[in-house]
Each structure stands twice: as structure tokens, then as C-alpha cells.
């Protein structure tokens, strides 16, 4: 289908290069009050006293709010997080008070006058410490307060927010079949999403109680539901607006600032309030990427087939659980990587610590466990004496194999990893494991990692699409998907254009999301928008086509089957000269004699996930997501053996994309993911001191990759259609990141002859482990 394979420009391109594109904070601020937060300087402490009286005394201050003013508990899965800290702070940066004032200067002046007396408590920054006997329990009430949550298993009296397990086969028998084994411990520190647009929100409440929130959210419908639930407001009273979003990467799916903006407005009689968040606050206070500890034991038989695995993931979710229990579940259900392992014993714990709390991050934890698992895979390949790429081929999951949660693989639901591996071998000219000497001190090496991912949405997540027409016969496509860079709206327009057999220029998309006007779309996360909203768009298109046929059949006085629709017209197949243009028919048809026929065409399509199930608590059996996307990545670099510095040369991804829609856009999305993976692997981390205070709260200190240090990015595609997805496409917006840290770790471990078990892979880290003489 021509409209599908075509490279099309983003629909919003010219808006984005002229400054016309509007993001949350780009709307007029006149008439708005400003709110600023006061945050905790301690990683863990009791709040003994808060004195706001001096802050109130500043002229222009409209409200000073503390936790006790709104004693609600928030949280998308477990309600463990107060809107503002009450009695206790659990991370450095936690919001403690909120000042609302006429302007920002006044708000800041007043904020600095709030006196808070703290009594510091012991700080836990490592899940291993959090699980020790006698460790302070961060949430004594969890597991008691809201006992009816589903699919979450907090362990009361511990710091475990949830626990999942996978039990399959006979683990002891599995070990007996193994000839080679590895057992490794890994540690990954937290890092941040660092979308270039800082998170923010605005709120106002009308006299009759209508709440209007404008936010940088990836999940406007979730904002609406959560605010309704926490503050007991009928959801219909709440409208949530999301204009363009300046990058999300999962970090804007959590509902936090919207709650603060809402209570700020509530406290000033509903006046419009703009919450101002600085980059420093965003880094310290708003949720970040998880941190992970893991233990991986893998064994293979003499042919190199993996027979057994014992895996434990301790996901450090920080001070509050947010969506992290689901990420722990995802790690359990996909934590073997895309390999078939007959005997499997896996535990995944979501553990509280005093880090900034974590939320979804591009690929929902897959980038983290993949680092651990794929490092272990390389070690086991070496032990077995098999080339690491070959070793992955031997173990790659194939149709008929069972996933860890015992879903049977088919080409449709898991694609073709074997084909990806074969393709990458050529694309990257795989050189095997031996570093190639290029200068006395320099070697060139490659490292490989596979990737897979399935989403872990609620089993009943929904999406929708609506289509209306303009007088020129062009279409307006309206969905609840947020545009934050992944090009979803353009992709959906392309799907619609293909269904309508129409040029994409005839499709207009509605960019902003307004929860009153747009059909609900669960959340713009998990790379599921193409699948879910795409299916809804197809249905809406069918609806439109059917309506047009009905009207045309009356107009032509023929059978609907005799009609064909393409290029903006409907015509009789056997007599193309007998046609009607969309513009003449979509508002209802006026016959030459003046008779009116039909009615305006309005398309609707709805979609709901089907066939997913909650995992069995004992064995983990169940279907967590609609499908898996598989792929393989290779990183090639030049390593300086004396300095432990390195230069990236190439980064390759071969991924099963299902089907090609906008090939250029696919490559760019994957390359962007790879770039983020390289940043994560090589330099990014949130460095905390032992009292839990962030050492790198600015972009001066939290280092991102700049231009000029990137490798050349190359993307190869394999196409195994996913049958239940529009035109067979697969999810892939997050996936470019997943295997890059592992591929880099594998390359560097070989180059430096060390065993990398951490991130980021800085020259100093490589040097320090080489000093310890391990390998």
C-alpha cells in the first residue's frame, strides 16, 4: 500500500521549526498565580514541626499549603504517596509545602521563610539494605491500608512493595543437565528521563466546581481518573488538556504535579495557578528511572543450550511505588530475555528505599534487566566456548517455545529473532569476540545483545478514534494519543490514509488532547499507541467507509457492493465515470433535484485489549501483553587499553518491525533510542551521597550525550506481521534503548578484559575494576 511504505514528514513539522508549536508552559501566564514547592533536604526524616506563619506574612502570598491540608494518599497502583509529605519525608526533594503567590518572586521569598524542623532518620539507598533485618520500614501501612488491590503483592512489615515469581520446569533437574554455569551480581544506579521539557502543570477550578488542568502528561485520562478518585470529584467535572509534549520517555506518565497544581488552585478559591518547576526540582522531586540489583545464575548443556536459570531482580523503586510493581512484574515475565529456558526459577521484588521514587522509563525496566541478563549470556557463551552471537542463535526463542509466563510463541506474537540475528551478522560484519588491534594501545571490538519487550498494560486498556470531515472533503482525525515526539499522530494519519486510499495531505490531525473532546486512550506509553489507537482508527475508517457507501448507494440507486472508494471519491466499480467527491457527500448528499440523502458522516472506532490475563501468583502463568517485539543490537568501539577511554564507532539494531509504515520514521525512532541507550550506558546516573542527597541535580552535573561523540547508527528491519495489529505493525518506539547498555558492556568487558557488572561504563569504572584484577 503506497501510503504506508512512504516516508512522510511529521504533520506538525512546520509548527516545530517556526516556534508555533505550543507546549504546556507556552500559553499566556497573565492573570495566573504562581506556585512553587518547598522540598525536603533530607533523604529520610521525621517532620517535627512546620511553621508557615512568616511565609504567610509576605504581601502577595495567597496560600501556603502543607501535607495536612490535603491528607490524601496517591498512587496509581498502591496508594502510598501523600500529595505533600505528612509527618515524614522519604526522599531528598520530596515536596513538603507549596506556596501560591501573585508572582514567582513572592512565592520564592515566602517559601524561603517556611521553617521546617526535621529529625533525620537512617537512610537506605540499596535494596539489599532495605531487606536486612532491622531496616527501617518506609511504609508500615502498605498491605494493610488498601487491601483490595489486584495483582500487587506487598509484604506487610517489610520494604517489599510487591513480589512476583516464575516457576517452570524442574530447576534441580535443569542444573543437572548443565555443563557450564555462570553466577553473577549486577548493580545499576538510578538515572533520569531528562526530557528536554521540564514537567509542569496548571490548574483552575470554576465556581461550579469544574476542574481544568493543563499538563505535560503522557496520561491525561489517568490524570482525570486519579484526581477524581483522590478528591472525590465526579470525573465528568474534570477536564485535562495536554498540548504538545517536549519528550516523555515514560517520565510524564506518573501523576504528581497535576495533584499539586490542583490543591494549589483549591486553596486559592479556584484561581488559575501555574506550578513552576525548575530543572533541579524536576531531577530531585519528580520520578526518575529505577535502580536495580540482580543475581543471575545461568547454565547451559554441552551443546550450548540453556537448561536452567535462577534469577532474582530487586527493583529499587525509591520512596514510593508508583508504577514500579508493574515493572517488577514485567521483569519477572520477560526477565529471561528472548531465550527459551525450560527450567526457570525467577523472583522479582519491588523494594522501597530513600531514593527519589521511580516511574516508567523508556522500555519499562527492560533496558535494566537486559543489561544483567545479556552480560550473563556473554559470560556463559565464553564458558561454553561458543561465539556469543552463535550462542544467542542457539537459544533464541522460536515459534512453539514457551515464554516465561507460558505463552506459546507464534510468528505473529513474537516475530522472528533468528532472522534478526542472521541479518545483524551481515549488517555489522560480525567479527567475533577477539579484539582487533589497530594501534599499539588501541583495539576495536564489538559487543552484542538481544532485546525483547512486551507491554504490561491493564488487561482492559482502551483506545478510540473519531473522524469528522471538512467542507473540502478532507478528514480530521481525533484520538486521545499525546504527541510527545514519537510521531504517533502522523503514523495514525498514515494508517487512516491507507484505509481511505487517500493522500495523507487530506488527513488533518488534532494535536492537543482534551479529555472531554478526545476519545479515551489509556496512556501514551508502552509503545502501544500504534497497536491500540491504530486498531481504533481502522475501525473508525471502516465506519466512515460504510456510511459513505450507504449514502452513495442511495444517491446512485445501486448496491453498496458495487461501490469503490479511493482518492477522495466514491464511484461505481464498473463505471468509474459515475462518481461523487467526498466534499459532496460527507455532509449528507444533496441530489441534483434538491432531495437530501443520508446524513453527515461521523466515524467512530473503539478498541479494547483482549485475551490478557493476570499472572498466576505461584507460577507466573498468564498473558501479560498482546505481543513481543524482538531484535538484536551490536555496538562497535575503539578502546584505549592504557587510558580505559573509548570511542563509539557504530551501533546497529535489527528489529522485527512487523510491517513498514514510514520506514524513515522507524529508523529515526530506533536511532533515538540507541542514542539514549548510549547516554545511559556511558555517562548518566543520579549520584547520591550517603545521606541520600542528589549530587548531580543540574545539567551541568548530570551529563547527557552531546553531538559529536555518537557512533554511526544503522538500522535493519525484519518484517513478520503481527496479525491483530493494523497492517501487521509492531510496537517499537521504546525499543532502540533496550540492548545498547548490554552490548556496550559486552564490548568493553572484552576490550578491557574485565567483567562489567555496573553502569555507567565510564573510563574510571573500567579502570577501577581492572585494578581489582577481576575478569
Amino acid at each position, binding site marked *: 500500500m503506497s501510503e504506508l511504505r512512504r516516508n512522510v514528514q511529521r504533520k506538525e513539522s512546520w509548527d516545530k*521549526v517556526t*516556534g508555533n508549536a505550543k*507546549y504546556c508552559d*507556552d500559553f499566556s501566564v497573565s492573570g495566573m498565580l504562581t506556585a512553587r514547592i518547598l522540598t525536603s533536604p533530607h533523604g529520610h526524616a521525621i517532620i517535627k514541626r512546620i511553621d508557615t506563619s512568616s511565609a504567610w506574612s509576605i504581601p502577595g502570598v495567597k496560600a501556603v499549603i502543607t501535607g495536612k491540608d490535603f491528607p490524601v494518599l496517591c498512587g496509581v497502583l498502591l496508594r502510598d504517596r501523600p500529595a505533600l509529605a505528612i509527618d515524614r519525608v522519604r526522599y531528598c526533594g520530596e515536596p513538603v509545602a507549596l506556596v501560591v503567590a501573585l508572582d514567582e518572586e513572592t512565592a520564592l521569598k515566602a517559601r524561603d521563610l517556611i521553617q521546617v524542623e526535621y529529625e533525620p532518620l537512617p537512610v537506605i539507598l540499596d535494596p539489599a539494605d532495605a531487606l536486612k533485618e532491622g531496616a527501617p520500614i518506609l511504609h508500615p501501612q502498605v498491605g494493610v491500608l488498601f487491601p483490595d488491590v489486584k495483582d500487587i503483592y506487598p509484604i506487610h512489615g517489610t520494604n517489599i512493595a510487591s513480589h512476583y515469581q516464575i516457576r517452570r520446569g524442574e530447576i534441580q533437574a535443569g542444573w543437572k543437565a548443565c555443563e557450564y554455569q555462570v553466577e553473577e551480581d549486577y548493580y545499576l544506579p538510578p538515572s533520569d528521563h531528562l526530557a528536554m521539557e521540564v514537567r509542569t502543570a496548571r490548574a483552575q477550578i470554576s465556581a461550579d466546581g469544574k476542574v481544568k488542568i493543563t499538563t505535560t502528561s503522557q496520561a491525561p485520562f489517568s490524570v482525570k481518573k486519579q484526581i477524581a478518585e483522590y478528591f472525590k470529584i465526579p470525573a465528568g467535572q474534570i477536564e485535562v488538556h495536554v498540548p504538545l509534549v517536549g519528550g516523555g520517555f515514560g517520565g510524564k506518565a506518573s501523576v504528581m504535579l497535576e495533584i499539586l497544581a490542583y490543591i494549589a488552585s483549591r486553596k486559592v478559591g479556584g484561581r488559575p495557578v501555574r506550578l513552576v518547576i525548575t530543572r533541579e526540582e524536576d531531577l530531585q522531586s519528580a520520578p526518575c528511572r529505577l535502580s536495580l540489583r540482580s543475581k543471575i545464575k545461568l547454565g547451559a548443556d554441552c551443546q550450548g543450550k540453556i537448561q536452567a536459570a535462577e534469577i532474582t531482580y530487586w527493583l529499587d523503586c525509591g520512596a514510593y511505588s508508583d508504577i514500579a510493581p508493574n515493572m517488577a512484574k514485567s521483569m519477572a515475565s520477560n526477565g529471561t530475555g528472548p531465550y527459551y529456558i525450560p527450567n526457570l526459577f525467577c523472583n522479582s521484588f519491588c523494594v522501597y528505599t530513600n531514593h527519589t521514587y521511580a516511574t516508567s522509563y523508556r522500555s519499562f525496566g527492560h533496558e535494566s534487566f537486559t543489561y544483567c541478563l545479556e552480560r550473563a549470556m556473554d559470560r556463559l557463551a565464553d564458558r561454553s566456548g561458543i561465539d556469543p552471537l552463535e550462542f544467542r542463535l542457539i537459544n533464541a526463542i522460536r515459534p512453539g517455545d514457551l515464554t516465561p509466563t507460558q505463552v506459546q510463541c507464534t510468528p505473529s506474537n513474537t516475530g522472528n529473532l533468528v532472522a534478526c540475528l542472521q541479518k545483524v551478522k551481515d549488517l555489522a560484519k560480525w567479527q567475533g569476540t577477539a579484539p582487533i588491534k589497530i594501534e599499539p594501545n588501541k583495539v576495536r571490538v564489538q559487543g552484542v545483545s538481544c532485546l525483547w519487550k512486551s507491554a504490561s498494560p491493564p488487561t482492559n486498556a482502551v483506545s478510540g478514534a473519531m473522524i469528522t470531515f471538512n467542507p473540502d472533503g478532507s478528514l480530521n482525525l481525533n484520538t486521545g494519543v499525546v504527541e510527545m515526539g514519537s510521531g504517533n499522530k502522523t503514523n495514525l494519519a498514515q494508517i487512516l490514509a491507507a484505509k481511505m486510499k487517500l493522500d495523507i495531505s487530506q488527513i488533518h490531525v488534532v494535536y492537543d488532547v482534551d479529555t472531554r473532546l478526545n476519545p479515551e486512550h489509556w496512556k501514551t506509553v508502552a509503545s502501544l499507541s500504534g497497536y491500540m489507537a491504530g486498531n481504533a482508527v481502522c475501525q473508525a475508517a471502516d465506519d466512515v467507509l460504510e456510511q459513505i457507501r450507504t449514502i452513495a448507494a442511495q444517491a446512485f440507486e445501486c448496491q453498496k457492493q458495487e461501490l469503490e472508494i479511493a482518492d477522495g471519491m466514491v464511484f461505481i466499480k464498473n463505471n468509474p465515470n459515475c462518481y461523487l467527491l467526498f466534499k459532496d457527500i460527507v455532509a449528507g448528499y444533496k441530489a441534483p433535484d434538491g432531495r437530501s440523502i443520508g446524513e453527515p458522516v461521523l466515524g467512530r472506532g473503539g478498541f479494547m485489549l483482549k485475551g490478557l490475563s493476570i499472572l498466576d501468583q505461584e507460577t507466573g502463568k498468564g498473558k501479560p501483553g498482546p505481543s513481543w517485539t524482538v531484535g538484536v543490537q551490536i555496538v562497535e568501539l575503539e578502546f584505549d587499553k592504557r587510558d580505559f577511554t573509548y570511542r563509539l564507532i557504530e551501533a546497529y539494531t535489527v528489529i522485527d518491525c512487523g510491517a513498514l509504515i514510514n520506514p524513515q*520514521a522507524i529508523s*529515526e525512532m530506533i536511532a533515538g533510542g540507541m542514542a539514549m541507550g548510549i547516554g545511559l550506558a556511558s555517562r548518566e546516573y543520579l549520584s547520591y551521597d550517603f545521606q541520600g542527597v542528589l549530587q548531580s541535580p543540574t545539567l551541568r552535573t548530570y551529563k547527557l550525550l552531546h553531538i559529536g561523540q555518537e557512533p554511526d547508527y544503522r538500522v535493519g528491519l525484519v518484517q513478520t506481521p503481527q496479525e491483530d495489529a493494523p497492517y501487521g505493525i509492531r510496537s517499537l518506539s521504546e525499543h532502540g534503548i533496550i540492548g545498547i547498555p548490554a552490548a556496550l558492556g559486552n564490548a568493553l568487558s572484552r576490550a578491557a578484559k574485565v567483567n562489567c557488572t555496573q553502569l555507567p561504563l565510564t573510563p574510571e569504572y573500567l579502570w577501577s575494576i581492572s585494578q581489582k584484577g577481576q575478569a
Partner: protein
Amino acid sequence: MFEFTADKCLIELDVNGENKNAIVRPSDLLLDVLRNQFGLTGAKPGCKNGDCGSCTIIMDGWPVKSCLVLAVEAVGHTILTVEGLAGTSPVQKAFVDYHAFQCGYCTSGFLMVCHSLWMMKSDADEEEMEDWLQSNICRCTSYKEIRKAMESVLLQNPQKS
């Protein structure tokens, strides 16, 4: 001597070829004045610390980060923002053609650096181009697309106005 000592003062700025008045505090940032008083929201705050470049504008021909400039300092200088390019700079078209953005948040800043480079040093080699572009961060793209867009403009080696 040129001085602003009052709490608030009236200034006149030359922005995109127009004289604009604003009432500012001497400590107000040019970025905030452009955005909040002139509605020129193309320049974006990403860090307000000089690190990300998304607030970049052009002052007297050179790129500067408007989060590190006082509005009063800009009096007597010419300011160009992305809105002032009005779709006519070849870098804008190149960014569209080469898909040099995803979320678009960093784009205005990158464009201003690129436009200044094209105006000031249209003969720049790759090293110099990289050097200029390293002032900005893009979190979405792989940089490859931005690089290609800028290269395509430099290759045209235009007659400078």
C-alpha cells in the same frame, strides 16, 4: 552611564526587527521577558542554567543562551528569535526535510545556532559545525538527522546577504 535602579523599569528592545517595550526588573532574564511579555515562546527553558541550549536566540548575529542574559543587557542590541526567521531560513526547511526533531522542544535552540552558523561561517567545516552544535542537547533524536540537516545547508554555500 546607562543605569536601571528602580524596582521596575521600562525598556525598549529590538526584537525581530521590531521595537518592543517591556516593564522589567533589572534582574529579569531575557528568556522570561521574551516568553512572558512578548509571547515569543519559541525560545524554551530546558535548564535555565546555560547547559541545554533550548533557549538560544541570536544577539548581534551570534548565538546566546537567553537564560543567561539579563533583559536590560539586551537594550541596544539586536535580537532574533525563531519567530523572526519566519520560515525563511534555509535551516528551517532543512530541519523539516531531514526530520531533525522528534518532540521539537530543542528545535528552536538548535535552529538559532544553525542559522547563526550559516550567517556567520557558511564555510564552516565539520569540526567547527560540531563545535557550535555541541552547545545544545537533543534528547529525542540520534543527532544524525540534525547533523545532516546542517550539512545540507552548509553544502549549499549560499551567497550571504
